[in-house]
């Protein structure tokens, strides 16, 4: 792969990984917040409403920022890989339409859920929360078809043979997709739980009951991942053998990811071990929250980051896999313009600086409780 292609591939990769980290946080915390709100309303438990609002703050701070990285991915794809983008908007038209429809519902309901808190009937507010949480999962439901096609171009292969109309529907039957989607969604739910557990360990937010609720969410879905992860890997062995070989560092691999895979498994083991220790200390919310519970969320995110990196960069030196070979990024690279890479890297640098500023602001805000735990009484 030429250096220019590696640069473009890297910028796309950075954007995807930043986006995936933020999206995992927002999907998971959105679900937990909506559930807490629902239980607060149905079982008349005001403390769960407080939890819902506190957890929702995590989502609010990350959501728009995750969305903008989605936009960055679009521009990077269209700008650097226009032929791939043109193909995706044709063959994967319907899944993208589903994702867009979900975004269309998701973001306004997030804003409504926050700003109508205490201003509309609790039942209606709960409903807004549930719509918000469920619509969030519609986004990966649509977009993960693209990733499935990059790993196993089931519909793209049909399109290349001239069967475009059939391909546009066949995309829904990509056999790799269900496992990828389940692995993604359950991962997000697990990460959401661990993030919540960490959040309620932060100084100023300590709450054993809420941390315990987050912890069991994280552990439960992590256990489900114990089945889904290997299942996805097994599917890769037959659908995307090169990616499978790369992950396991087998002979014929083009990018040895085994050390990274081993690191991921080690971190999962660490997560399980730490969760058990925290579980014993918290005692179903009646005990104390040990400070080391703080690491749960960040470790869960690192695990997801490694997973996404392996899934995307594991195709190296190809962008679209075709069994044991594939189509390299140069196939799709922008041939229309001499991209000014120095400026591009400066822009990526500024974007990442803004990520840093944003993260510091966000965690400072969450830690210092700058976002009101209670709705403001100002009219």
């Amino acid at each position, binding site marked *: 792969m030429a250096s220019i292609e590696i640069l473009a591939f890297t910028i796309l990769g950075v954007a995807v990984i930043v986006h995936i980290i933020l999206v995992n946080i927002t999907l998971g915390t959105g679900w937990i917040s909506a559930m807490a709100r629902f239980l607060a309303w149905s079982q008349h438990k005001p403390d769960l409403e*407080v939890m819902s609002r506190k957890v929702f703050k995590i989502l609010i701070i990350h959501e728009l920022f995750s969305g903008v990285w989605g936009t960055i991915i679009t521009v990077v794809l269209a700008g650097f890989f226009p032929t791939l983008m043109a193909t995706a908007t044709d063959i994967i038209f319907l899944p993208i339409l589903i994702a867009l429809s979900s975004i269309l519902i998701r973001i306004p309901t997030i804003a409504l859920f926050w700003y109508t808190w205490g201003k509309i009937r609790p039942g209606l507010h709960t409903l807004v929360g549930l719509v918000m949480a469920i619509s969030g999962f519609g986004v990966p439901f649509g977009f993960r078809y693209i990733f499935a096609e990059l790993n196993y171009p089931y519909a793209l292969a049909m399109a290349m043979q001239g069967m475009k109309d059939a391909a546009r529907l066949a995309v829904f039957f990509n056999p790799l997709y269900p496992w990828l989607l389940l692995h993604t969604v359950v991962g997000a739910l697990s990460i959401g739980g661990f993030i919540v557990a960490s959040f309620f360990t932060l100084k100023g937010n300590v709450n054993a009951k809420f941390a315990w609720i987050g912890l069991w969410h994280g552990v439960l879905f992590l256990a489900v991942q114990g089945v889904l992860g290997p299942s996805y890997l097994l599917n890769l062995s037959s659908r995307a053998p090169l990616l499978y070989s790369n992950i396991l560092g087998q002979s014929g691999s083009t990018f040895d990811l085994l050390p990274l895979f081993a690191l991921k498994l080690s971190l999962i083991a660490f997560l399980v071990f730490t969760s058990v220790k925290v579980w014993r200390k918290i005692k179903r919310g009646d005990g104390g929250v040990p400070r080391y519970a703080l690491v749960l969320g960040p470790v869960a995110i690192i695990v997801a980051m490694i997973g996404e990196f392996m899934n995307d960069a594991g195709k190296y030196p190809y962008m679209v896999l075709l069994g044991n070979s594939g189509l390299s990024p140069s196939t799709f690279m922008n041939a*229309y313009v001499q991209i000014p890479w120095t400026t591009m890297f400066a822009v990526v640098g500024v974007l990442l600086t803004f990520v840093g500023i944003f993260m510091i602001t966000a965690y400072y805000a969450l830690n210092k409780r700058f976002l009101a735990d209670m709705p403001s009484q100002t009219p």
Partner: protein
Amino acid sequence: MVATSLLLPISALGIFIHSFFLTISLGFPWVIGALLFQWWRTKDKEYYDAARNATAVLGLNFALGAITGTLVEFGLVQAWPGTIFVIATFGLMPLTFELVAFIGEIALLVLFIVTLGKVRPLASLGIMAFYGAMAILSGALIMTVNSWLNVPWGTGNLASRLYPFLPQYGPSAADPSALVRLKLELVKTLFATGTASQVLQSPDLAKAVGLTLNDPYVALYSPYAFASALHAVNAGIIVGISFALVGYAYRFWRTGQVKYVKIVRAFLPILLVLLILQPTVFGDMMGKAVAFQQPTKFALMEGAVNTTQNPLIDFLAYGNPQHAIIGFDSLRSQCGSLGPTTLGNLAASTAPNITLGSASSVSLKSICLSDLSKSESRLPVIYPLYYAKIAFGILDLIAIVGLVALNFNLGLLSRLTRRILNRFGQQKSVFLLSLLVVLASIFASGLGWFVREDGRKPWTVYGLIYPEEVITPVSLSPYVFVAFAVIFVAVAIVGIYGIYIVSTRRLKFVELLKKGAGVD
């Protein structure tokens, strides 16, 4: 394929909905900034409370603006995938810089929201000013890309080779033969299959077309883009501030509390200055740019079926009262200079290995005349709407001057205004004038945008590319698109209702919640 006649209005609807939220994103920083300034100057907490309330509206609105913007962007590449070529070439650098502005907006808005009331007023004012600058930059860069569609700056004399009445669009920063080759591929595929944008999916074609653009920054140098950015962004700011104005004026009318007038007075002078600048400076620049760069649009705006004289318009548009307004008759006669040249001749001279089939015998003159007729067919709509926009602009200016005269002491003007509006009383007068300002602003901006976008038809890229050449090749039931549009509208309505609730309704459950949670 999906009909362009269906997708064009749906896309336009999406952009209009998005622009509603954009105006608040652009206008409210000025309102909040003015309130923070007054809070810092007077220590009056009512300014702070008003700033907080406006911030809540801005926050919710930003979410709605971001979502509608994302959808408009995705919608663009989904429904009109031919535009991917623009994003990958002339639009690449403006859109890349826009990402910086957009991400900056979010980071700064979050920073502002979480620190408001926790840091000094001037610090908050500084953050809001920085946010406002990012919002303006974002709007200006998006307008740069839109402007490239209106005036494809950097394509040199390419468009004028097809339409002799068009001027040269800046330097020739793109390889003309590569652009012609791509255009001919689009024409060929359109003739063969009914859609054309799918040609962009072919890596082989992309490599065959090759390096098209030598200067990726060229769209940023366009004088048309500069005028458009100033004109459109200022219009957005005016509408956004007007929303705040009418909200507070309504409260004043219903409650009679003078604090609402006090709040209005904090930002009214800003609105006055922007409304004076809009026609006298920015509108003037825009008008001159259109007159020179887009002769068909200018002829539509002036209803110039035939070339005519109007010293005032001629002076304003061309800086010369003797200069005639060029009508469609003159434009049509210029098509004659194309002679008998056909598309086949053009292909033979620029891309000899392209076989155009039945399209090769089509003469460039007939295309020129046909496109002029398509453009002229819009005259009965564009001409009256353009002058309606001008009328609303004048009305807007009169209303804001009246409002300022009513709320500040401007001597004779204030006495005269009060005498005229005496029968309504102060509360109702303030509200009625504010309502007039917001309605006139909305109509002037909305109609202006319609004229801008519809006036460039029959092209998507003025003088170069038709909508049929960029539309999606995916065949879908029109109902899918209509359903999508309906959901879009529904979300916008719910969102606007949410903004209304945020800005008006007091909390119902907060005390119970606090009690239950043991906070109190």
